[in-house]
C-alpha cells in the first residue's frame, strides 16, 4: 500500500511536467503576454518592453520560454501579475483559502444532508418522503446555479429587506466582508457565505441524495442482507453494519474526488456573489491574459485533482477488501 502511494506520488512529477508544458504552449498560442503587457501599460517605452521581455523570459522558442518559467517556478520565484504587477503568491493564497472555506462549508452541508436524505429515502423506498425528496433532487439538479443564485439574492436581499423594512439587506449578496472591514469576524464571514454556500450546497445535496439512495437500494437487495436478517440480529444492526458499511463505499470515493475538485473554484457562483476565490481569480487572470497568474493556478489545481484521485483510490481500497492496490 505504502509503495503504491509512493509510486503514485512519483508519477505526479512527470504528469505535472506534461500538464504544465501543454498548458504553457496553449497559453502562448492563445494569448500574447507582450500584448497583455502593452494593454496594461500603453505608454511603455521600448526599453521598458525589452526589460520586461528579458525579466520574464519572453525571448526564444516556446520550449525555451517554458523552461525559463519552470526554473523560476520551482525555485519559488513566481513573479508578478501582468495587470497591477502584484506578487502572484499572496493573491493566489487568499483565493485558495477563500475557495477552500466556501467549498468545504457548502460541500460539507450538501454531502451531510444529501447522504441523510438519500439514506432515509432508500430505507423507505416508495414512501412519501422518497417521492418528495426524489422530485426535489431533480428540480434542484435542473436549476442551474446562476438561476438559483439570482433567485436567492432576490428573496433574501431584496424582498426580505422590503417586507421587513430593514435598512440593510437581510443577507449580503457580494464579497466576504462589508467594504472597509478589516480583520477576522466569524459571524460576518458566515453571514456572507450563506447565500453562495447554499447555492452550491443545493446542487451537492441533490447529487449526493440520489447517489446515496441508489447505492443503498442496490445493497438492500443484495443477498448478504438476507443472510444478515436470517441471523436474527436487529434490523438496526442489519442496516448499520451490513447495509451502510457497503453502500457508503462508492459514495465516499466519489466524495474524495469531489473535494479534490473544490480547489478549482466555482467559477459561476463565485462570480455572481463577487466571492474572491479561485474561480474568480482564474477568470480575471484569463481575461487579462495574465499567464504568471494562470500557470501557478493550474499547477495547484492539477496537484489537487491528482492527489485526491489518489486519496479516492486509497480510501476505496481501505474500505473494500476486494480492491488490491498494486
Amino acid at each position, binding site marked *: 500500500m505504502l509503495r503504491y502511494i509512493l509510486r503514485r506520488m512519483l508519477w505526479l512529477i512527470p504528469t505535472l511536467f506534461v500538464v504544465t508544458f501543454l498548458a504553457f504552449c496553449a497559453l502562448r498560442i492563445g494569448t500574447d503576454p507582450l500584448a497583455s503587457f502593452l494593454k496594461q501599460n500603453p505608454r511603455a517605452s521600448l526599453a521598458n518592453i525589452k526589460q520586461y521581455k528579458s525579466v520574464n523570459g519572453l525571448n526564444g522558442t516556446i520550449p525555451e520560454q517554458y523552461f525559463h518559467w519552470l526554473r523560476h517556478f520551482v525555485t519559488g520565484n513566481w513573479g508578478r501579475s501582468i495587470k497591477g504587477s502584484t506578487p502572484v503568491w499572496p493573491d493566489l493564497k487568499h483565493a485558495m483559502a477563500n475557495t477552500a472555506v466556501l467549498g468545504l462549508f457548502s460541500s460539507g452541508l450538501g454531502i451531510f444532508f444529501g447522504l441523510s436524505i438519500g439514506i432515509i429515502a432508500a430505507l423507505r423506498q416508495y414512501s412519501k418522503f422518497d417521492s418528495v425528496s426524489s422530485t426535489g433532487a431533480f428540480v434542484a439538479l435542473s436549476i442551474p446555479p446562476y438561476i438559483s443564485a439570482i433567485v436567492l439574492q432576490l428573496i433574501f436581499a431584496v424582498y426580505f429587506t422590503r417586507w421587513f423594512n430593514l435598512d440593510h439587506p437581510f443577507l449580503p449578496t457580494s464579497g466576504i466582508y462589508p467594504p472597509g472591514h478589516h480583520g477576522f469576524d466569524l459571524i460576518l464571514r458566515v453571514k456572507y457565505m450563506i447565500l453562495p454556500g447554499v447555492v452550491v450546497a443545493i446542487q451537492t445535496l441533490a447529487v449526493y441524495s440520489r447517489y446515496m439512495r441508489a447505492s443503498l437500494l442496490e445493497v438492500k437487495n*443484495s*443477498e*448478504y442482507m*438476507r*443472510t*444478515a*436478517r*436470517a*441471523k*436474527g*440480529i*436487529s*434490523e438496526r*444492526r442489519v442496516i448499520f*453494519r*451490513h447495509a451502510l*458499511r*457497503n453502500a457508503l*463505499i462508492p459514495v465516499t470515493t466519489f466524495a474524495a474526488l469531489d473535494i479534490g475538485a473544490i480547489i478549482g473554484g466555482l467559477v459561476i457562483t463565485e462570480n455572481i456573489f463577487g466571492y474572491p476565490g479561485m474561480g474568480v481569480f482564474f477568470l480575471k487572470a484569463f481575461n487579462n491574459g495574465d499567464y504568471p497568474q494562470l500557470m501557478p493556478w493550474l499547477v495547484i489545481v492539477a496537484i489537487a485533482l491528482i492527489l485526491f484521485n489518489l486519496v479516492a483510490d486509497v480510501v476505496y481500497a481501505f*474500505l*473494500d*477488501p*476486494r480492491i488490491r492496490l498494486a
Partner: protein
Amino acid sequence: MAEEPVLSLADFRVSFPTDDGDVLAVRGVDLDVGPGELVGIVGESGSGKSVTFLGVMGLLPKSAKITGSAKVMGQELVGAKKEVIRSVRGENIAMIFQDPLSALNPVLRIGPQIVEMIQSHRSMSKSAASEHAIELLDLVGIPQPKTRARQYPHEFSGGMRQRVMIAMAIANDPKVLIADEPTTALDVTVQAQILEVIQRIQRELQAAVVFITHDLGVIARVADRVQVMYAGRAVERADIDHLFIKPTHPYTRGLLDSLPALGGERLKPIAGAPPNMLNPPSGCAFRARCTHAAPQCANGDMALVAFNGSETACVRIQELVTEGAL
C-alpha cells in the same frame, strides 16, 4: 414420526400482490419434519420451494401475504411479533443459500460474520465466540481455520464459501437447517463434498435438514423423505425408496423420466410449462401437462392422501396403478 416435529407447516400460503393481481406462489403446503430428519423438496423452477421457506424464515419482502401455520419447535411464526421471529431464526432455524459468494458480506472478515451469528443469540465474550467460530470452521472441513477466519469471502473458493455459510448457519446448534439449492452453483466434485458436510451436520448435531433442489439425483443421495412440489402445492410425499421405485404422481414420474440415465438413454423432459401463478387452475394444476388427465382432475381440493405407503395428490392414482401407467 413418534417425536414432536421440529418444523411443522400447515396450510401454509404465500401470495404477492402485484398490479395484475395476487401471485399465489404457495397455495397451502403441509409438512412435518422430525428431529434429525433430512427432507428433500423438489420441483421445477417457480414451484414455490424457495418462497415457502423464505416465508417461514420471515425473509420475504414486506409485501408478501403469509397465512396458515409455520411452527418451529412448537413456536408459531406466522403472524408472530418481529422479536419472536428474530429470536427463532439463527437460533432454532437457520438457512443457507444457492450462491455462497453473494450471501456473505464482502467487506467483513469470515470470523466476525460467524461471531455475529453466535453473539446475537448467546451471551458469549468476543474471544470465546471467536474460538467457537474457529471450531465451527474446523467442523465443516476448512483447513487452517484460524488463518481462514481472518480472511474475506472473496479469498475463498465456491465450495469453501458454502462451508463457511454452513458453519455460520449451525453456529447456534439449530434444530432445523434449510438448505436452498446449496450445491447448484458448485461443480460436481465440490457438490459431493458439500453434501457430505451437510450429512455430517445432520448426524453429529442431530439437526433436521430441509434440502431444496430440483436435482433428483442429489435428493436420492441424501434425503430420507421427499416432498414434490408443483405450482405452489405438494403433489407427492414419500420415502426416498418409494419415490424412486414406485412414484405415485404423474408429475413425479415425469421428473424421474427426465433424469439423464447412465445407460445413455435420452432424457425426456416434461412437455409444456408450469401454470401462471396469477390464475392457477382449479383442481390438479398439473393436468394441462399430464398425459393421464381426465375430467375428474379438474375438481377436488387436491389434498395429499395416503396410497401404498406414500401420500399423493393424484385423484386417479388407483386407476393409473391398476393400468400400470406409472
